[in-house]
């Protein structure tokens, strides 16, 4: 007996329904079933609402639009303190014990600062620029920038620029491992990154052999479990990212359950089939910035100083001080992941209660690095909640060199944010390793959808820049005069380093 009434209800329009049975085949959770009425002998489509996760796959694929998923509407007695969700979660734990596990970024109603920041535009003086007629530069290069100009004895400038990664626009696909998402999803991201001239991040689960050819557009990751890390892997990518933390679960590591470690993932992660892949939160060799420096330089040594090293942390309370340390560790790029960042699985309580919004972390990190005169020693990449080109522009104006997008990219591939990745039965073929489901995501169409999305964003970014009278994204970086807060208090404005609208 299930003590919790289903959250969703399958609303079937029986006048439209032709009983074709496509919904039965489409649903990986077994919601729909074709049944024969024992008395009349008539065929009938039945639905088990308790299995429905509202992934919308049957809705999209019903050829006669006979399906809708609606809230079940069953309500507990109203209580401003004890929400229905809270009560249900207690029932779940009372029944099964254990740590509550959720997927994707926190859906909780915390303030969204991106939505309380407005952009500027030029009027009359300093006229706007039309990106359709004038060149508009969105290219960025990430990596440490030299502090001084060096010259040889003959007075010629010496190239003292360290390794960089070049992006056609300041957007990259953030780290999602093979294991948390499918190979077809990975291939879609890799091919899109190549076509767009940006990077995708392979995450901590190693790199599938079929994707090595996209190495120039790949960021390879090294996490505490070191899955699939070996010299050829490190040398294959355009940059190496050390994963210290993740916005969805700061202070928590990753456990890919053994049930998801099939033959192919086993080969890529280089661990036996069926064993848990455990990446604990701490790197057991890193207890200080000096220790971090050691890992940064051991990776640089292993790749002959040809690759920029990124250190990725979750946005937490002391992000500014931590970033200051990282900037001195020899890392070339700092990636900060905000608390809205997605995940294939995270403890619910951690996801919803730990970490801080990326907007505030970014503003304080950029400010701190500037104050200390080390802003150019590193590039800043932010992720965890970037939903649109407007968020990208605001992030850049707050001080980011580039953003990472994860959830938005998965949505482009079909995801409807049903937040059930941890179940491993993603109907869209993204967060699953079931071969039948993975087949549903065709990389040929998947990569095109990603390219479409990012090209659309690029044009929007150019429009917004043009409106501000800015023709190179580098001139927008940290240009907080282009931002105004709306409905923010003085302290929030101070941390964001922006004025209020009307000022």
């Amino acid at each position, binding site marked *: 007996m299930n003590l919790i009434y289903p959250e969703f209800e399958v609303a079937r329009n029986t006048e439209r329904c032709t009983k074709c049975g496509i919904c039965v085949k489409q649903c990986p959770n077994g919601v729909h079933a074709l049944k024969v009425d024992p008395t009349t002998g008539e065929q009938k489509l039945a639905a088990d609402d308790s299995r429905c996760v509202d992934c919308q796959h049957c809705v999209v694929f019903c050829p006669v639009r006979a399906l809708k998923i609606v809230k079940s509407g069953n309500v507990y007695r109203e209580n401003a303190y004890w929400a229905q969700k809270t009560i249900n979660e207690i029932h779940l734990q009372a029944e099964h014990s254990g740590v509550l596990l959720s997927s994707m970024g926190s859906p909780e109603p915390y303030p969204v600062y991106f939505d309380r920041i407005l952009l500027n535009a030029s009027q009359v003086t300093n006229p706007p620029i039309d990106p359709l007629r004038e060149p508009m530069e969105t290219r960025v290069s990430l990596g440490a920038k030299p502090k001084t100009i060096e010259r040889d004895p003959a007075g010629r400038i010496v190239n003292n620029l360290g390794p960089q990664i070049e992006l056609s626009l300041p957007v990259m696909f953030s780290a999602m491992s093979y294991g948390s998402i499918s190979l077809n999803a990975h291939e879609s991201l890799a091919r899109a990154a190549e076509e767009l001239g940006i990077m995708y991040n392979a995450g901590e689960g190693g790199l599938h052999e079929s994707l090595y050819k996209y190495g120039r557009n790949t960021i390879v990751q090294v996490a505490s479990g070191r899955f699939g890390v070996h010299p050829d892997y490190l040398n294959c990518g355009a940059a190496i990212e050390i994963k210290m933390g993740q916005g969805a679960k700061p202070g928590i590591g990753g456990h890919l359950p053994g049930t998801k470690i099939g033959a192919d993932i086993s080969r890529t992660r*280089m661990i036996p089939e069926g064993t848990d892949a455990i990446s604990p939160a701490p790197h057991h*060799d890193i207890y200080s910035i000096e220790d971090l420096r050691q890992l940064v330089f051991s990776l640089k*040594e292993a790749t002959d100083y040809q690759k920029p090293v990124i250190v990725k942390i979750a946005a937490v309370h002391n992000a500014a001080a931590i970033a200051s340390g990282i900037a001195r560790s020899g890392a070339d790029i700092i990636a900060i992941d905000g608390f809205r960042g997605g995940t294939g699985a995270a403890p619910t309580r951690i996801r919803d209660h730990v970490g801080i919004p990326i907007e505030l972390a970014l503003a304080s990190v950029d400010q701190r690095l500037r104050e200390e005169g080390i802003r150019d020693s590193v590039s800043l990449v932010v992720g965890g909640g970037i939903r649109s080109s407007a968020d990208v522009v605001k992030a850049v104006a707050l001080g980011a060199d580039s953003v990472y997008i994860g959830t938005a990219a998965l949505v482009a591939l079909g995801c409807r944010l049903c937040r059930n990745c941890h179940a491993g039965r993603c109907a869209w073929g993204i967060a699953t390793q079931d071969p039948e489901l993975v087949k549903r995501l065709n990389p040929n169409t998947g990569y095109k959808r990603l390219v479409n999305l990012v090209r659309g964003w690029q044009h929007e970014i150019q429009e917004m820049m043009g409106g501000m009278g800015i023709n190179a994204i580098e001139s927008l970086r940290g240009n907080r005069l282009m931002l105004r807060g709306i409905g923010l208090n003085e302290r929030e404005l101070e941390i964001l380093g922006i004025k209020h609208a009307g000022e």
Partner: protein
Amino acid sequence: MRIVADNLDSMKLNQRIRKASGSVLIDRCFGQRYIGSGSKDKKITIYGTPGNALGSYLDGATIIVHGNGQDMIGDTMNSGEIVIHGNAGDGLGYAMRGGMIFVRGSAGCRAGIHMKQYQDQKPALVIGGKAGSFLGEYMAGGMIIVLGLGIEDAPVGDFTGTGMHGGCIYIRTNRELAGLPAQVHSEIAAWEDKQEILPLLLRFGAHFGCDGRALADDRYYLLKPNTARPYAQLYTKN
């Protein structure tokens, strides 16, 4: 090729090692880090004390140290061999996936942590003396042997094998091993079990001039994980 390391900084020393082919002999090594990082096909012999992250990501090369090693020797090693004629620091063989490490003396904390195996890659870590706490923590594969040579008390520290979910640890001692974590199953190694480690003992003996075969006659604890999925029961889907 012989390189006198003396005051060379790590970066310069490693550049010279990378450029060299075949055998490299490093003399008067004074703590230079990352020696042999990612190296595939060299034989590096070191006199003195190499610094941290010696042989990290090692991929087939051989490193022999006539002296002590420091922290993070063989970090994420893929294949090859590291032989230390002295003691080793913390984090020895972190996440190593292949190859062999032999230490004549003792190792610091967290030796063999995250060690894993894969197909025919089965790493081995042999420590002649004593290992510090957290030996084989999160171990997912491979083999660790602690010989406790010349050690009176228990040759391992606390929390041995915490979170272990693969591989095995052999500990040579006549004492009782107490306080092992719940994830670890321990028993006294049978004759057949000891045959598994005999080749490594012989190799240890050959490296350091002792009778490896005789070591196999002694009493060993054999530690194995209770489950390959230590966290399977931890979560409730929300």
